[in-house]
C-alpha cells in the first residue's frame, strides 16, 4: 500500500512542479516541491523511504530539466537521508525545527546545484546566484514545507515510531 502511495506521489509531484508551480512563482522563483516532499518523507517516514523517494523524484526531475541527468538524482536522496537522520531522535517536531531544517537543506541543495552547474557549464557569480536563486528558493521551500507540515498534521498528527523513537 505504501509503495503504491509513494509511486503515486512520485508520478504526481513532478507534473505539478512542471505545470502548476509556475503560477505561484515569486519574481520568477518557484519552490522545489520535490525537495519539500522528500524532506517531509524523511521527517514523517524513515530514512530508507526518504532515500528511495529522493532517488525516484530526483531522477524524474532531471528527466524534465534542461540540465544533466544526474544532479537531482544524486542530491535528492542525500537530502532525504539528512532529513530522516535529523528527525530520528527528535522528541517534538516543532515548526521552528522544520523551518530551519527545510531552509538549511534547501540552501545546501542550491549551493550544490550551483557547484554542479559551474562545474559542467559556464560559471556564474556565486553571490549573484545566491541572491537570485539560492536564498529566495530556500525561503520559499521552508515556507511551503511548513504549510505542508500543517496540512499533514491535520491528517496524521503523530509520526511513526521508527522515526521518532521517544516521540510521545
Amino acid at each position: 500500500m505504501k509503495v503504491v502511495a509513494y509511486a503515486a506521489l512520485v508520478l504526481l509531484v513532478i507534473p505539478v512542479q512542471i505545470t502548476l508551480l509556475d503560477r505561484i512563482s515569486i519574481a520568477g522563483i518557484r519552490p522545489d516541491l520535490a525537495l519539500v516532499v522528500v524532506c517531509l518523507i524523511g521527517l514523517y517516514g524513515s530514512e530508507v523511504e526518504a532515500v528511495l523517494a529522493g532517488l525516484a523524484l530526483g531522477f524524474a526531475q532531471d528527466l524534465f530539466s534542461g540540465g544533466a541527468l544526474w544532479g537531482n538524482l544524486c542530491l535528492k536522496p542525500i537530502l532525504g537521508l539528512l532529513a530522516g537522520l535529523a528527525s530520528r531522535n527528535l522528541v517534538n517536531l516543532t515548526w521552528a525545527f522544520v523551518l530551519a531544517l527545510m531552509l538549511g537543506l534547501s540552501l545546501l541543495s542550491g549551493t550544490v546545484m550551483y557547484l554542479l552547474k559551474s562545474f559542467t557549464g559556464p560559471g556564474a557569480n556565486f553571490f549573484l546566484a545566491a541572491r537570485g536563486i539560492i536564498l529566495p528558493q530556500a525561503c520559499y521551500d521552508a515556507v511551503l514545507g511548513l504549510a505542508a507540515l500543517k496540512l499533514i498534521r491535520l491528517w496524521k498528527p503523530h509520526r511513526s515510531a521508527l522515526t521518532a523513537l521517544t516521540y510521545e
Partner: protein
Amino acid sequence: MISLHSIAGGKRAAVLLLALLIAALLLLPESRQEPLLALGRHMAAAVSVPLRAMEWVNQGLDGFWGRYVALQHVREENFTLRQEIARLRQETVRMRETAVASTRLRDLLELRERLPYPTVSAQVVGRDPSNWYRSLVINRGLQDGLAVDMGVVTPAGIIGRIVKAYDRFAIVLLLIDPNNAVTGLVQRTRDEGIVEGTEKGLARIKYLPLLSTVKVGDQVVTSGLAGGFPRGLPVGTITKIERREAELFLSAEIAPDTDFTKLEEVLVVTSPRESTSLPPMPFPLQPPAKRDAGDAR
C-alpha cells in the same frame, strides 16, 4: 310655534339660495373672482399640509408594496440573473481566449507556410522543474519526428533547441540559458559569432571580429552554419557592445525578440537543411542599412 312645513320650506329656500349664489359666482366675470381666489389660495395652503402628509403616506405605502410585498419573486429572479451574468462572463473570457489563441495560431500557421523547411507545431506544457535551467516542456516527441538538437522557433524569432526528447515530450533549452549556444550573425555587418544566454536572462553574441562596425540596434539572425536552425531567423537586437582590452574578439549583449515568459505554441524545425536555397527572408526584418566604410573588408 314653528311648524315642520315651515322648517322644510326654509331649508329648500336656503338650498335654492345657495345654488343661486354659486350660479351667480360662476357667472361673475373672471376679474370679479379675485376675492374668491384669494380666499381659495389660503384654503388651498391650509389643505396642502395634510395633502402632503397623505402623499408621503401614500408614497410610503407604494414603496412598501413595491419593495417588499410585490417583490416576492425577485430573489429567485436575482439569483437567476446572477447565474446568467456569471455564465456570460465565463463565455466572454472563453471567447476572448479563443480570439487570442486564434491570432497566435494564425501567426504560427503563417510562419509555417513561409518557412521552406519541414516543421512540427507543438504546445508548451510546462517549465523547467528547477530554477537553475531555463527550459520548456513541449507536447511533441520522438513519435512526432522530433530529435535532440532540433531548433524551436516562434513567429517572433528563435527560442531554443531540443536537448532531451522522449516519446511524447521534449525538453527545449531556451536561448537565454547560459548552457545554450547557437551560431548567429549580425545582419548588417555579416559578422558571425556564437549566441549564448546570460545569467540576466538575455543573450550575448561572442567572438565577433575586433574590427567589426557592429553597433547598438543591429539585428542578429541565425547563420545556419551549425545547429538546428536555418539561416536568417531573427534572434534579437544588439543593446550593448562590450569591448575589452587585451581581448581578440568583441562581444555584444542581445535583447531577444521573443518574450520567453509568454510562450504557448512553437514550431520545431525538423530538418533545417532540406532546402538547398536560402529562405526568401521569411520575416519582416529590418531593411539593410547603409554599409559603413569599414564593412568593405
